[in-house]
């Protein structure tokens, strides 16, 4: 239960902060948005991040990674959250590299992980099929066909779906929609016949896509994990995904809080700094309390991954995501309100955080989803 950073982690966090501040300030994100950039992320920035080793940060050394630990990835994500940097780190590394590492066979690891670590391959997880996160609610069919399988179905909200070259597709090979058993994961080439990708424009201007699969043929070797046992990979991967998102959301929360605090100290009305008004002070303290609680639960959850406390992870990951959803929701809303009129303008950056907040809240399960999951996990 390490609730403080060690020296290496502190160094990593500092260098992540330095890079994001220098190479990926919010102005960069705005430029990508306004240019309606085809990729939706900066190749230059990604190259710099790869150079720092972050793409391989939790990939084993034998597969070209740093094996630095999951906590490290969380620290980098936290810093990307502060500047709203849109990078392939979530879809390709947090989610896909975790899936390959946890569920891939040796051949798959040997082929895919080094490419992920060197940033030359982008991947994405095609999971959701409706507007509400529900990871076992898979209707997309994979039917035996020749020496392999034929996949048909529709996926939505696939993060980085339009830039990823290889997709991890959650399909159903048995059972009925909603069953935990009977889910099978496949690696699918985005360029394969029958795959249609439509990029969607979300309020946070990040990458997401709808992907349809029409009789897409894959070989049996494309299966990730065992037939019908996909949930055994999916569940721990989604714990890590929720946790990584929570780390990003902590960064965003801290940034909005600090900017708002600075504004309260600077803005004068009625010949007084507005930060001297007690009602605003108490609300600022409420935010601060939530932030401190959020930091603690997140830190504990990140440590649990690296300390191999596998049994604790589901509860900790859901707790962390739920707490960060509440915290960022509150702070992103208060941030706009406390900035007053200028907070409502597109010219000011605070609104970007509000938009990102709601998308991040819904990514990998919102607070409601995780509270219900916690109740299930705790047996009530």
């Amino acid at each position, binding site marked *: 239960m390490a609730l403080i950073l060690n020296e290496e982690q502190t160094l990593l966090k500092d260098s992540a902060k330095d890079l994001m501040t220098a190479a990926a300030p919010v102005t960069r994100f705005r430029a990508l948005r306004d240019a309606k950039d085809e990729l939706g992320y900066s190749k230059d920035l990604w190259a710099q991040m790869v150079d720092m080793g972050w793409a391989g940060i939790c990939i084993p050394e034998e597969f070209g990674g740093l094996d630095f630990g999951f906590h490290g990835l969380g620290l980098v994500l936290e810093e990307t959250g502060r500047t709203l940097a849109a990078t392939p780190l979530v879809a390709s590394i947090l989610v896909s590299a975790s899936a390959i590492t946890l569920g891939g066979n040796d051949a798959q690891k040997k082929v895919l992980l080094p490419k992920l670590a060197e940033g030359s391959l982008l991947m994405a997880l095609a999971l959701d099929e409706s507007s*509400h996160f529900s990871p076992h609610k898979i209707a997309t069919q994979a039917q035996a066909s020749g020496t392999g399988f034929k996949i048909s179905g529709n996926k*939505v909200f696939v993060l980085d779906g339009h830039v990823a070259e290889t997709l991890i597709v959650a399909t159903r090979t048995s059972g009925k929609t909603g069953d935990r058993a009977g889910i099978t994961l496949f690696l699918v080439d985005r360029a394969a016949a029958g795959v249609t990708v439509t990029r969607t424009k979300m*309020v946070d201007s990040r990458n997401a896509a709808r992907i349809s699969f029409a009789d897409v043929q894959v070989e049996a070797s494309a299966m990730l994990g065992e037939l019908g046992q996909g949930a055994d990979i999916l569940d721990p991967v989604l714990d890590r995904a929720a946790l990584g998102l929570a780390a990003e959301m902590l960064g965003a929360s801290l940034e909005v809080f600090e900017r708002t605090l600075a504004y309260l100290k600077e803005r004068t*009305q*009625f010949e007084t700094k507005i930060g001297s*008004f007690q009602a605003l002070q108490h609300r600022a303290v409420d935010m601060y309390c939530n932030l401190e609680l959020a930091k603690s639960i997140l830190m504990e959850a990140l440590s649990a991954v690296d300390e191999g406390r596998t049994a604790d992870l589901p509860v900790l990951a859901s707790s962390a995501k739920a707490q960060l959803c509440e915290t960022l929701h509150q702070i992103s809303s208060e941030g706009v309100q406390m900035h007053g009129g200028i907070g409502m303008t597109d010219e000011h950056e605070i609104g970007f955080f509000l938009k990102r907040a709601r998308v991040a809240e819904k990514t990998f399960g919102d607070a409601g989803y995780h509270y219900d999951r916690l109740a299930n996990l705790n047996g009530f």
Partner: protein
Amino acid sequence: MSDIEQFRAETRAWLEDNCPASMRTPSVAEEMVWGGRRATFTNPDSKVWLERMGAKGWTAPMWPAQYGGGGLSMAENAVLESELRRIKARPALASFGLWMLGPVLLEFASESQKLEHLPKIVRGEIRWCQGYSEPGAGSDLAGLQTKAVRDGDVYVINGQKVWTSYADQCDWIFCLVRTDTTVKHNGISFILFDMQSPGVSVKPIKLISGESPFCETFFDDVRVPARDQVGELNQGWTIAKRLLQHERTNIGDFGTAQSPQTPMHEQAKKYIGEDALGRLDDAAMRREIAKYQVRQKAYGLTYARVGQELKAGLGDGAASSILKAVGAELNKHRSELMIDMMGTQGIGWEGDGFNDWEIMQTRGWLRSKANSIEGGTTEINKNVVAKNVLGLPTK
């Protein structure tokens, strides 16, 4: 037949003859008529309707006839309103001139000012905008710095306004300017001028919702006839406050104004589904919606109660003081619930994958964040209620 029955019969007949059929269908935002020199009429019927109503003075039914108004009594106005409702007539004109400026001109302006400006407001010939807020003077409106310096029979105006609604489409502005820099509230004057005057420039502000209903407005040595000052020199704050009361009454009414066509719980079922018993398949969301509906209902009834109290001359109308703040929070809460229940369909920006209604919800959610800022922040509103209604001490 009594006079009022006579009036009802005549009104009904006139409306029957003069209100075009397409003006008896539900309003659509694109066909809303704001008037002005550059008025556009997507539907030509709305031009006819405005002209006919304007000629009768029925866009401002109770304003005196000598200023172009309808000159109706309160009872006659009630009849007109009920007859308009009966045929589901659209409003002929939407206008800050009607809602905000007109009432204070009637109270504070000189006879010649009334004769000059009010008829054009009634007929929708001039569209007005409001020059109040400044970058450094938001909640503290009286801290405004835009200066008007007297030079013979003109004022020379320099400074900047912000949040000027539709300044890029308006003809004239009613504007607060500083005419004395040595005092705060007693150094402000209320002045009217043409937005086409040399030195006026306008820049739309893009909001987080993507819309641009507001502008920044810059004044660079704008020369304005001194006769267009309303009320006494340096006494503009009194007028400004009265006008804000009219504004707040308009802005407060979120809760009832935006009643969606389909009840919230039916929208929720579309996105979340229902269980075997027909209950929304998310019990926590179900609870939240029920809670919202109770509050929404209580809010609407509070509106109605305030109205009944005023009509009866009962009470101090204290409940009206909370309508703006409660309405703002309620509408923000409604918007959050909507995009919450819609899942990832509630966070689309544009393009494929989202229908118009969905995009409208998302944009509306972003727009709603301004409800607790515009027309006096909720914080200021609470300060005022604490002091004036609850009688709590100031330090």
